[in-house]
């Protein structure tokens, strides 16, 4: 019915998005104060962007600075816009798109590490197998009784994904992941 209206009937220029979405990791250094996280996150949710991973902790106690690491998906153009708008926020000290920086340094991607706690319930063969695989992944046992293990594993997100996937048939109960901590390789800071 309204086909004739399509692009021309708008008060806005509606251009089709041609860039492909990419996954980027951003580091944001902010004053550690109430509301700062909501301000940062608002720039993503206002665009309907999902945040795939989020890590926040105070990293410089004397200066009360927190470092926020965000993994999100979007077009490079919009991610650059978000970065610029983050820099404009009052409590924000510094913003680095680690993915872009890594590329400019000639690296594939920034260093990204994550910690996960993985609870597995089982007995007999499954239990032995879980322990053997944990050893291969250098996961350590931090809690156990005769029926369960809680493993602690750190590494790249892909390694953790793999570990969780193979624990599934061995009695996986629950998983908790920290979200990634990230920085670029080389001697310079962010």
């Amino acid at each position, binding site marked *: *019915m*309204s*086909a004739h*209206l*399509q*692009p021309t*009937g*708008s*008060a*806005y220029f*509606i*251009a*089709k*998005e041609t860039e492909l979405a990419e996954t980027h990791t951003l580091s944001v250094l902010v004053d550690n104060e109430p509301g700062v996280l909501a301000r940062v996150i*608002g*720039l993503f*949710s*206002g*665009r*309907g962007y999902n945040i795939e991973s989020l890590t926040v902790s105070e990293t410089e106690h004397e200066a009360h600075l927190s470092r926020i690491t965000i993994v999100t998906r979007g077009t490079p153009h*919009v991610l650059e*816009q*978000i970065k610029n*708008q983050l820099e404009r926020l009052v409590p924000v000290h510094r913003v680095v798109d680690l993915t872009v920086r890594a590329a400019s340094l000639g690296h594939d991607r920034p260093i990204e590490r994550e910690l996960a706690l993985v609870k597995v319930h089982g007995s007999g063969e499954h239990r032995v197998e879980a322990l053997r695989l944990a050893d291969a992944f250098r996961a350590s046992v931090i809690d156990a009784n005769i029926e369960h293990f809680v493993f602690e594993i750190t590494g790249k997100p892909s390694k953790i994904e793999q570990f969780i996937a193979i624990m599934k048939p061995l009695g996986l109960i629950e998983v908790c992941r920290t979200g990634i901590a990230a920085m670029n390789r080389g001697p310079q800071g962010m």
Partner: protein
Amino acid sequence: MSGTENQMTGAEIVLQALKDNGVKHIFGYPGGAVLPIYDEIFQQEEIEHILVRHEQGAGHMAEGYARSTGKVGVMLVTSGPGATNAVTPLQDALMDSIPLVCISGQVPTPLIGSDAFQECDTVGITRPCTKHNWLVKDVNDLARIIHEAFRIAQSGRPGPVVVDIPKDVQFATGTYTPPSAVPSQKSYQPKMQGDLKKIEEAVELMKTARRPIIYSGGGVINSGPQASHFLRELVELTGFPITSTLMGLGAYPASGKNWLGMLGMHGTYEANMAMHDCDVMVCIGARFDDRITGRLNAFSPNSKKIHIDIDPSSINKNVRVDIPILGDVATVLEDMDRLWRAAAKTVDKARLEDWWSNIAKWRARNSLAYTPSDDVIMPQYAIQRLYELTKDRDTYITTEVGQHQMWAAQFFGFEQPNRWMTSGGLGTMGYGFPAAVGVQVAHPESLVIDIAGDASIQMCIQEMSCAVQYGLPVKIFILNNQYMGMVRQWQQLLHGNRLSHSYTEAMPDFVKLAEAYGGVGIRCEKPGELDEAIRQMIDTPQPVIFDCRVANLANCFPMIPSGKAHNEMLLPDEATDEAVANAIDAKGRQLV
């Protein structure tokens, strides 16, 4: 519909989804980012669109419509200023639990975040003032989201929701999913049925109560007509006295013999004293608001408290209760009535005699008394006459916010639920008139009156133009004292009678203003002429602005001054200038 079955543009999906959710009227204002939806509205006849003059008006109209029908109110606004103007009614609806769906246009997806013309972060701005909100980025999600929006707005504790739709999504073609095909959400499942053990425990406690009271609220109205029915039954069965919050008026009839009047800051002496001295309090769909409780540590100190509410976060929020019952008011009261009937034989009705004779003494104190006058119209008298002359008609009342609102609550008797629309939680001046327009849209044959103040009415007066356009004969009854009366009253109480900016030096001629809009203006200055003037207003088939000139310096009593307890009320005959000036101590001054 073009092409394959169920393939529609986003704008077509919006209209189809509204129809499938039973919408008959929407209140809105067009603009660049909603033009495709307006184009669809133009090409259909099932849904009537009411063109407002300001988006705030659209929101309050939708609220009045929802409150008077029990249905969801729908508003439609454009991006940017359209959405920001909707914020006040959204917060108003959130605080008073009014089901509202607000559809807003947004700039095209690729432009979001680029400071485009009429862009604002609608989901960011409305997040704290809605029950839930969505930014729709894919046209294939649109139908599901609108159906969910209706479900969330009206289920559990009702509230406002926003669906923000970028313009390219309105143009894009996608699949329409009917409401029946949408899987229900897993995360939001309000609990309707109350825990039967808790209800039994509550009934046991009520059976032995010697000084019981029922304190009911807006939740009874929201739960639907059945809830009022079961509440009336409960009062009849138990013989308990009942009081209500501002939002709950009409759930129990004002003419009922167990009615104590409204409680709280401007409630009756008998209601507040009974709350203070009771041994068992049954709170039904109310939330222990600060206007109700007075000083918290002196609130009903010796009572066991039962609290029925559908919102788990309302329980133990301000006041700790002994028996919380989580569930829908109507469902819980039905169980409670049944359990009471089963146990009725074991209940000694005579045990309440002393309590009722106490209440009779408090009633005799006549806390709503005022000094009548033959020369000037007392505001209380004006409301009494308005009530007497309209009570046998099919009448709906809305109010603005201030002294006139409290006088309306005190002196207008409500016999049925959904007849009283007022901004209780947020206290929004400018609410009443657009709300009345919304009520009139839903009930075209009824008498709809906005009881207003001279200051409040000027906040949304532009909707006169809307009322005239649609032939909605709403009556605005202004208690005109030339002051922001409640502000002045507080300045007298708190700030040494220094009346800072609470007097309106330049007042419009309300009669001419009505005529300028194409309505009818009536002025009345003498008590002897009031009845005739009110009759004339009722008989006028057009919108009327009634400029009722009342005593300028009358104040609203009785009153619990801030920082005081229920048994420390300031009564009208004790409210001398000196008593008013000293009513609130230093601690109370910190409060509002």
